[in-house]
């Protein structure tokens, strides 16, 4: 499926004197040499490639052919919501009236952009059941940090010193990392046998020094926290705030709202639920919505409609804002895409997002569980499910082997070794935009791979056999760090040593 021919580095294509660039004719006087003091002048030009534009276009086109995207096929990465990214959103983001706007233009010149944001805020509030939004966070983790800083500002405003934030042991790694950056300690609450927050364990952690609880619902195991109202009461009873990590919001859109569950702060990953492309690891957007009592603490300025003038404006707030978290207004290009998506789907279409995401996950789960064990068989999954390859491991193949072998059947593997609380985890999220034929084909491939453990174990251990590269030596990459190219660098041709178990989580 992908191009297996090696592609040289762009530096290896370079020939002195070749060029791609063109520069306008210098029609003003050149600046005098002394315009830059000698001490600050460049002595030796940076080693950038010297290539023709055609070289570049072929180079990156070939490289793209060594990369797998949703546009090529099924991408069931659990917790990542790799759904189809509508192309109309790309056309909208490329409109010069959006793409060519400078972020500091006065309000009179950006009425359309401000209106887009105000209307998107209304839609996101309708989805989350919250009151106000900041669009500054550039990604989910950025939203987390912003939300936690708001949590901190809220408590400090009330002269309330608090120390800890509780997160489930199944939480995504960004949660504890964000908690620490906000100056709080992490308290981990265990999951129970069914994969839900253990209420007894939570009870023991609750205290007046708890700033809040951060949780995903459905949680990172793909299970709905059915005790969420009780959990909210427990946290609120000690004055803590409830933070909703919106990574799995796509499972409940139009079915229930975090605000009704008792959440105070909600971030959304627009590159998940609202179908903006992941771009190989961004740009995404992580807008944050909050309840009315926290709205004054949001980053400022915020887009608003001023009824008295009938104009859209930047509103500065009353001084309680935590300040800005982005140089400008966030990833507007992504917000314009998400706004297009919301307008295209509307209330009826967005309801289908959760309906079919959950239907697809449950269907695929039902198809796979004769060969693979569900990590939490007593709980019904929502939009994604976690398998454990314990049985496969006992027969000689680890989750990573299964994942790598699936590549040879033309699919991107599921997420493996996450969540950390599940042994040999394989986390599958089909999303709503996949058809029954795709799910059947994936299920067939997973069953074939399972049979191969006994019939052709070599294929699993060596997999992938058809990808642009076989398994890279990751230990060597870390041990003998080469994070840039040098003209005298040559990849060693000797056989890489086989590595031990690769059990890093991959989300």
């Amino acid at each position, binding site marked *: 499926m992908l191009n297996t021919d*090696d592609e040289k580095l762009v530096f290896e294509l370079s020939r002195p004197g070749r*060029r*791609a*660039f063109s520069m*306008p004719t*210098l*029609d*003003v006087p050149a600046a005098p040499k002394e*315009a*830059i003091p000698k001490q600050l002048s*460049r002595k030796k030009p940076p080693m950038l490639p010297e*290539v023709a534009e055609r070289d*570049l*276009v072929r180079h990156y086109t070939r*490289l*793209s052919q060594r990369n*797998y995207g949703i546009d090529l096929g099924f991408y069931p990465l659990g917790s990542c919501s790799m759904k189809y990214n509508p192309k109309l959103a790309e056309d909208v983001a490329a409109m010069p*009236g959006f793409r*060519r*706007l400078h972020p*500091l*233009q006065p309000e009179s*010149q950006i*009425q*359309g952009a401000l*209106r*887009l944001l105000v209307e998107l805020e209304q839609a996101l509030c309708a989805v989350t059941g919250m009151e106000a939004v900041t669009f500054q966070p550039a*990604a989910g983790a*950025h939203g987390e940090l912003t939300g936690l*800083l708001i949590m*901190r500002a809220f408590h400090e405003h009330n002269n309330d010193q608090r120390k800890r934030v509780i997160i489930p042991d199944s939480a995504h790694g960004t949660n504890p990392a964000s908690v620490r950056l*906000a100056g709080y300690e992490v308290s981990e609450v265990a999951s129970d046998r069914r994969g839900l927050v253990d209420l007894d364990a939570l009870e023991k952690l609750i205290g007046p020094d708890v700033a809040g609880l951060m949780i995903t619902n459905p949680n990172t195991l793909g299970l*709905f926290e059915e005790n969420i109202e009780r959990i909210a009461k427990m946290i609120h009873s000690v004055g803590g705030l409830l933070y909703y990590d919106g990574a799995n919001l796509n499972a409940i859109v139009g079915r*229930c709202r975090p605000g*009704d569950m008792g959440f105070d702060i909600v971030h959304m990953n627009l590159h998940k639920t609202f179908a903006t492309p*992941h771009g190989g690891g*961004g740009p995404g957007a992580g807008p944050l919505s909050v309840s009315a009592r926290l709205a004054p603490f949001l980053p400022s300025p915020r887009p608003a409609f001023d009824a008295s003038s009938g104009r859209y404006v930047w509103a500065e707030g009353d001084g309680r804002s935590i300040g*800005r978290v982005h*140089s400008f207004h966030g990833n*507007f290009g992504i917000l314009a895409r998400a706004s297009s998506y919301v307008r*295209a789907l509307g*209330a009826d279409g*967005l*309801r289908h997002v959760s309906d079919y995401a959950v*239907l697809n996950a*449950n*269907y695929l789960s039902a198809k796979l569980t004769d060969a693979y064990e569900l990590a939490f068989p007593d709980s019904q999954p929502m939009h994604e499910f976690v398998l454990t390859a314990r049985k496969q491991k006992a027969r000689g193949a680890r989750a990573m082997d299964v994942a790598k072998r699936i590549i040879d059947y033309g699919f991107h593997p599921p997420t493996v070794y996450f969540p950390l609380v599940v042994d040999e985890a394989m986390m599958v999220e089909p999303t709503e935009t996949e*058809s029954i034929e795709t799910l059947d084909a994936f299920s067939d491939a997973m069953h074939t791979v399972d049979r191969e453990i006994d019939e052709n174990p070599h294929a699993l251990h060596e997999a*992938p056999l058809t*990808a642009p590269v*076989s398994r890279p030596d990751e230990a060597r*990459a*870390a041990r003998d*760090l080469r994070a*840039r*190219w040098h003209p005298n660098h040559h990849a060693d041709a000797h*056989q*890489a040593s086989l590595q031990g178990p690769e059990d890093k989580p*991959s*989300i």
Partner: protein
Amino acid sequence: MDFAPHTARDVETMLATIGVSSVDDLFNVIPAALRVDGLTIPNGHAEAEVLREMAALAALNKSADDLVCFMGAGAYDHHVPSMVWAVLSRGELATSYTPYQPELSQGVLQTLFEYQTMICELTGLDISNAGLYDGGSGLAEAVNLAVGATKRSRVVVAGAVNPLYAGVLATQGAGLSLDIQATGWGSDGRARDVDAEGAAAVVVQQPNLFGVLEDIPKLAEIAHAAGARLIVHQDLTALGVLEAPGALGADVVVSEGQPFGNHLNFGGPYAGVIACRTADVRRLPGRLVGETVDRNGKRAFVLTLQAREQHIRREKATSNICTNQTLNTLAVAVALAWFGPQGLRELGEQCIARAHYTRDRLVEHAGAEALFQETPIFKEFAVRLPADPAAVCEYATSEGFLAGVPLSRLMPNADLDDALLVAVTEKRSREEIDAFVHVIARACKEVA
């Protein structure tokens, strides 16, 4: 409209396989009291309708296509080569996830490796990561690196650092209880009275908010004498003509990558850049791509030193960053490859020439007074105007110009109420500049 391919028959088949009678049954786990039926927003629209609606919104804006752009302060109207987004729009790149599965991600990984190499070359530092969100949060990440490395919490912001960047640093610094102090600037527009005693880092912007060049070697000396890291927020477009900051003593370089390959986009998505010395590599935030070999000895690229990152190290990670701005980072790399060493040099020379020409004309014909005239500039400069800058800008808009940023908008209490910040990229022709100066001159008379 929606993008789910399900026919009624598909749904029936799937429900039967699951063993439930309706889709609603799959949501029974949600407590009844919490259930809502749908959303309080309008129903969906056809593609043609959405495009028409969005085009109407876009038409309410005046963009840098409608107005000749002399506005900067962190976002610049440089040329974006046509081929950049022609290649980056390919679905294999644009619709891929973070490259955790290297066998399926060599395209993104190799391009990021090339990017890291270019950033090392430009900055004169050893290691570049694979990108951050933007120039503001990049600065906050760089300070976190220095705080971790020195175990100190005092941070000195030297001179006129863009308040939009310093603002992000202040917000994020609150979480870690950093003690952030700003030094202010002297009559030459440069950082003054920098006391790095006990500081984790000295932060400086090059060129600074006013567009003037800071004395990086001197600041490096001050920072290093106190055991602090020197963090330089560097305009990359200047590095064809300016010495690599690493060669002048910078320990960490951060930047806003927007000027290379990224459109103005109303402020985002842009690309945060960070590079450091080998000694600090384990404190570097975010993704890092390394070269290795596969089982057949073939060159391969992977995400490496992941033990720094949140998905392994959780609360002990160097940063919480996960999804970043990869596609925009790739745009920086593709554009840098397009410019090449000669193009980068000419880009710098053109910026300097056009900025000087514009400033001279404004002084000569519009009654403007150059701020910090004796200090070298690159592509941006500040002038004092004989009329209110905001009013001048408004007048200029009606004449087709985005005149610049009134400095009081960024620094309300710095005696800069009559100052305008003007940016001039390689795209601004003499004809545009002359017309601009003419309009500013007229505006100063009309609105005074």
